[in-house]
């Protein structure tokens, strides 16, 4: 019973939404779902945020591992929640919580944005180490990947033209910048399309399995 009702909900809601695209009166139901989802997600956050507080609080109380950093997390979390809920710094209560001059905007600009950008920027190093790894791989597939990557990389820099600019016009396809354009518009496009078609079919089959209730471990067990 504890599983039957959720399985029925999944099946009915899923089936209705599959067919909703074919009936004009139901075409907007997908948008309604997005709205419901956003509201559900806010309530779910009470569980997620609660978990965050609980985990760090337990660490602090047990003085476990890096418990001092858990204090930092808890304080940072509490300050942001308070500043946002009461719209600190906002001249107009009706204005957006992240409007000009609010604490939330200051927090975003001076903490979240630089931290995010720096995390993102670490990719420069990781891309280099991944390239090195691909370079060391000795199989044919990795070699193909590396050659394609190298051509595209050179093709986007002046070095590509510098290296192959001497190739006569009648064979200009062999010039690296042109070769890079061709790889993007030819073989790359083909691969992308094969992946996309496969994904389209894969989503259909997986959705059917979920709607038919064949795959339902996500609903937990009957025993609790």
């Amino acid at each position, binding site marked *: 019973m504890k599983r039957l009702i959720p399985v029925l909900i999944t099946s009915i809601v899923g089936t209705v939404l599959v067919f909703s*695209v074919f009936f004009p009166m139901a075409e907007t139901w997908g948008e309604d779902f*997005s709205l419901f989802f956003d509201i559900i997600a806010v309530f779910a956050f009470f569980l997620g945020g609660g978990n965050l507080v609980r985990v760090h609080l337990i660490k602090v109380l047990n003085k476990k591992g890096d418990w001092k950093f858990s204090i930092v997390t808890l304080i940072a979390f509490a300050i942001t929640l308070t500043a946002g809920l009461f719209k600190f710094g906002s001249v107009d209560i009706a204005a957006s919580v992240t409007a000009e001059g609010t604490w939330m905007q200051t927090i975003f600009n001076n903490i*979240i944005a630089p931290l995010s950008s720096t*995390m*993102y920027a670490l990719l420069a190093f990781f891309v280099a180490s991944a390239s090195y790894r691909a370079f060391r791989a000795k199989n044919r597939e990795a070699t193909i990947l590396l050659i394609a990557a190298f051509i595209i990389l050179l093709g986007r820099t002046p070095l590509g033209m510098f290296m192959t600019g001497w190739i006569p016009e009648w064979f200009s396809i062999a010039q690296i910048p042109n070769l890079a354009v061709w790889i993007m518009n030819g073989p790359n496009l083909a691969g992308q399309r094969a992946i996309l078609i496969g994904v389209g*079919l894969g989503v259909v*089959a997986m959705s059917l*399995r979920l709607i038919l209730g064949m795959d339902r471990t996500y*609903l937990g067990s009957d025993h*609790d």
Partner: protein
Amino acid sequence: MTKQAILAGVILVVLLSAGAFGQDRPEAVVDSSNLTGAILPAPVTNIEAKNHKYDDGERIDLFWEKSVDDPDNIFGYKVYRIDKDGASELVRELLPGTTEYFDEEVENDVPYQYIVAVVGEAGEAPSEMTPEVMAAWEFFNFSKLNILILGFIVCGSVLFFISSAKSGKKLFIRKIGGLEALEEAVGRATEMGRPILFIPGILDLDDVQTLAAITILGKVSRVIADYDSKILMPVSRSLVMTSARETIKESYMSAGRPDGYNDNMVQYITDEQFGYVAAVNGIMVREKPATCLYLGAFFAESLILAETGNSIGAIQIAGTARPGQLPFFVAACDYTLIGEELFAASAYLSGDPKQLGSLKGQDIGKIVAMSAIILGTLAMTFASAWELGFMQSLLDILNSIFVTN
């Protein structure tokens, strides 16, 4: 004298425009207060108002051919809607060059007429009034019939092979390297006494890749429960946390080890993409998982995670449907599930003949796609090279089957 001249000019212009374009036009529909005696722009022609097909009765589409004075001698167009009582309302002012307007502020099954006036220096030159038109409600969108039929073919094949497998027919499914390695990877973690890290991507449960990740988690956590290994699952969405907990708990229950489960296996971190990545990186270097699984929707963080995983010597299995992130997983992980393989993984791992049957059904979809591409290409080639009529017909049929707008 001046007043008389203006009055004469107004009368002349009104008479001229009435004689030239208007018959039964309600008075005071268009604003002619700006008339100065200059020549009115030419009106629009061939105005047509149509019910927008296959909608919920909420829209009327208006088309016209632009004024010959467009764009040099006009300011723009004004669309007037006239209701059944003859009352007119200006519904929109449009820029020169416009030849259509979709009126979405109409009521269902109420008759309306329209006039499009060209606005020039001398005033407004109205078009003929359209015949009455109603926004009609339609039950079924016949323009999507082809999608429904194709959908039935693909879903039908999936269902057919599911029922065929149910009846005991043996189906062959090829080995998928990344999934074959999964049990070995879990075993290795158990032997080393280290945890298994499962990252379900960074999107919420309203993304199909996250759903795929959760269904795979069901199978992976069952193996973990059987091996009595430890799983770490930091997540960036609260809903994913809730569903992951249900999933893992169910696996431990069905493995007969309910005591092995605890809620701390799944931990919410933050919804912020790179905040989550910073935390996962920290967990990786501190907990040193022996196996890292990245399955779901990934963005720029794919390479940060996979390279950090590499630095701690973990076996890494990844899978995503995002073509832009697949290269990084391919370069940095031991195994990668590419696109469709991610969605097939749960069925594959279940070993359940019915679910495996659905994979065979997917293959029928691929055969349909490949046949359409090859047939369509041949038809287009022969039709353009030798202008063969029946090839053009075949091409038209294929286009009508795969048209999506």
